């Protein structure tokens, strides 16, 4: 699985203005920019979506939902990247989902409601259809927040409402992650947070860090271990979008210390696996990504003898040890508490209420409000009952077709 990268670009634009006196002609004429407010053209194929985003993003929050590629040079600062636009249909899906799982939730929970989004939401949400691959690093940019003004989301053409994990990874988590950056840039996170994992951050090595290893070091994701500001918003985004089962697995992994060791090959690893063996001590195979035969296994740290065999306690269990002295679980929960307090104190938002609302909008609940579980998994609300929810969201766009002239 490609390592995922989410980048914050803080555009510090230094404007140097040279005020030169006008020479002789004070009549500057009409603006070279188009200042006319054009009504939406009802004959256009895109009129329904254009109307939806005008009504739901532009008019209430002064946000522009940019789904067409208007200038590829604006879509990435790196012109060497090959990016393609989003299809119309996927743009419709993502617009309705952004409203449903992002804007509507903040609007309802923030203490200033609409005002909150007017003040803090990005001015532009830019949707890109293709992935944004960082070839030299072997990573992929999921989203970019630029100077609090613009959030770009990538890979929209592969949006699949059947795949909650994919939607969480690429869109929902990324929306909360990038918006978290904007809120963090507006009211800074507590300085104390930066000290919690001080010395543990690795701006380049995170791409090769397995989830469990990162968790054991007190990070909710490998990317969180890249730097403090990413750690901060990853805590927010992961807590809000991960379901309870997934969050508890993360905390479970974080209770232990993990180590990476070299292994000759995948076949050598498979020979170690026997029925009933303890995978935590043998380790989990991590496929070689470099192509250099750099095969790894990551496993929980325990007491081993000189031959490398596991020493067991009187009950026959491995003796887990914490060499680093880091209690990953406590650290993650401490970080979460700080995010919780910061959101509540500064923005009036309960992160727990937000999480509950996001989860309830994502997964099916019964009449009592309890989550429905099938085959050990939560049920995708978007695709449930023949895509009833997703179709109702799409209808919020489609309904504007009625305003269009009939052919």
């Amino acid at each position, binding site marked *: 699985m490609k390592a995922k990268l989410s980048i914050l670009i803080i555009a510090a634009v230094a404007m140097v203005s040279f005020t030169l006196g006008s020479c002789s002609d004070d009549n500057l004429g009409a603006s070279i920019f188009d200042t006319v407010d054009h009504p939406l053209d009802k004959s256009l194929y895109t009129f329904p979506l254009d109307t939806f985003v005008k009504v739901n993003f532009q008019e209430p929050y002064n946000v522009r939902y940019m789904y067409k590629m208007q200038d590829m040079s604006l879509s990435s600062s790196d012109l060497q990247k090959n990016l393609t*636009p989003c299809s119309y249909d996927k743009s419709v899906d993502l617009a309705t989902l952004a409203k449903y799982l992002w804007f509507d939730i903040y609007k309802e929970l923030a203490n200033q409601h609409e005002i909150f989004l007017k003040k803090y939401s990005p001015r532009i949400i830019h949707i890109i259809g293709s992935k944004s691959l960082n070839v030299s690093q072997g990573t992929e940019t999921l989203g970019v927040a630029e100077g609090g003004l613009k959030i770009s989301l990538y890979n929209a053409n592969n949006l699949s409402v059947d795949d909650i994990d994919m939607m969480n990874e690429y869109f929902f988590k990324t929306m909360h992650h990038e918006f978290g950056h904007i809120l963090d840039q507006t009211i800074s996170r507590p300085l104390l947070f930066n000290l919690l994992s001080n010395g543990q951050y690795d701006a380049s090595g995170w791409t090769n860090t397995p989830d469990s290893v990162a968790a054991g070091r007190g990070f909710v994701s490998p990317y969180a271990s890249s730097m403090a500001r990413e750690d901060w918003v990853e805590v927010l985004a992961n807590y809000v979008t991960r379901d309870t089962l997934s969050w508890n697995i993360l905390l479970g992994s974080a209770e232990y210390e993990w180590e990476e060791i070299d292994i000759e090959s995948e076949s050598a690893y498979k020979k170690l696996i026997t029925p009933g063996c303890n995978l935590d001590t043998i380790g989990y195979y991590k496929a070689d990504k470099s192509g250099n035969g750099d095969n790894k296994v990551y496993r929980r740290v325990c007491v081993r003898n000189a031959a490398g065999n596991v020493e067991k306690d009187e009950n026959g269990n491995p003796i887990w040890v914490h060499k680093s002295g880091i209690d990953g679980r406590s650290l993650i929960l401490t970080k979460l508490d700080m995010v919780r307090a910061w959101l509540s104190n500064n923005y009036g938002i309960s992160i727990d209420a937000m999480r509950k609302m996001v989860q309830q909008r994502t997964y099916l609940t019964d009449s009592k409000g309890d989550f429905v579980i099938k085959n050990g998994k939560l049920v995708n609300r978007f695709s449930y009952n023949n895509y009833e929810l997703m179709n109702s969201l799409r209808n919020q766009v489609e309904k504007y077709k009625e305003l269009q002239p009939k052919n």
Partner: protein
Amino acid sequence: MKKIFSTILILSTVLSITSCKYEEDDIWNQSAAERIETISKNYAETLMNSKGGWAMQYYPTNSNSYPSGNGYLLMAKFADKGTVTMGMKNVFSSNAYREDVSTWDINKDQGPVLSFSSYNTCIHVFADPYDLPFTGTKDDEVNEEGKGAQGDYEFSMIEVPTDGNHVLLMGKKRNSYTYLTPVPEGTDFKTYIEDCQKVTADFFPTTNPLEYQILLPDSTINTYQFSSGLTTLYPAGTDRVMTGVVNSYLITNYDGKYYLRFRDALKLKDGSKINNFVYNKEEDVFKGVENENCKIVGPDMATFIESKFDDGRSWAMMNNTDMSVKCLAIYSALVVDFKNILKADIKGITLRKNNGKLSLAINYGAGIRPQSVIFNIDSYTLENGKFSIGNVTTDTDNGKKILETKAMQALVNSLKQPNTISPATTQYNPNVLRLNNDNDAELWLTITLK
């Protein structure tokens, strides 16, 4: 330091004054923004005015390598509701016809820019960053190269004449040119593409591929791997590796004629350029549009035939070969005679060279052990477009019996007489040849390179 500072200060002052001194009067009636708006509107009208749409000669990049340097024929119909319907059939669509609808806009950049602004599987597939499995690139999610074909989908509009007979676009990122010609109203995109592809394959076959020459007024250019669509062009008499340049081309139909347009213009020594060649059916030749003294010509017939003989190849007349009624009667009689003598069916008759000697073989039998009756030809003439053979003999008893038949005698006699030899369809594809008996216009047959 002080001196430098003083100099800069003085210069700045002088320049500031100078800039104030001369003021230009308005030389246009509209502001820059208004002019771009007007031009964009006109350009959009031109694109929409072709009711049948446009044939779009699309080159993802100007590179020398497959697949991004090759040309692809895309079709596009621009509608006033902001949609563009596109069609294509090529390796990017697994050689199946594909059609898709998306949006288009003309953006006002430094000039009008045609943007295919939402994803369309018929153009953005050339711009996606994903690996292309059909190139043999390992499509590895972990180690994606991030390149794809690197094509453009935003184009500066370079030429948009008001009569709408073409549009020339230039990709914003890769700077490769895309040439559009209108197609008649009601044109079925799939039919149009398949026709152009068939014509291309008929002219420049990929099986038994050939090389050609481009005759320019001042020089001759040889081609290498022309049929692949991505060809190397090099001056005749020079070393291809040292002097060759890679170019590519597409054939389209405009106004009922087939045009071959190179991606990169050919430069003549007088400084002029030539991009387009149009097929003249009467003369069976692609002639330059910009300069009709430029021609693309097929291989020299005699040299081509001899080279194939030398390669051990043969020319065959099969049971289903195209031939005149009179020739068919001879062939049919030979089939009957042959069956009476050898109790076997003729599979075909071939001309080939063995040890430098031309021979004619009647092939029969089937499966893994086909057999032949061989006839030796003591001499042959192949020059100035004429072909004839000398005496025919055979060493076997069955061969002698066959040679004595009336049908075989008629066939041999016909070949002994002067025959005009020419490509059956076009000079560009002499893989199928036609032999016309100069003494009897009703006696002709075709032979195919095997």
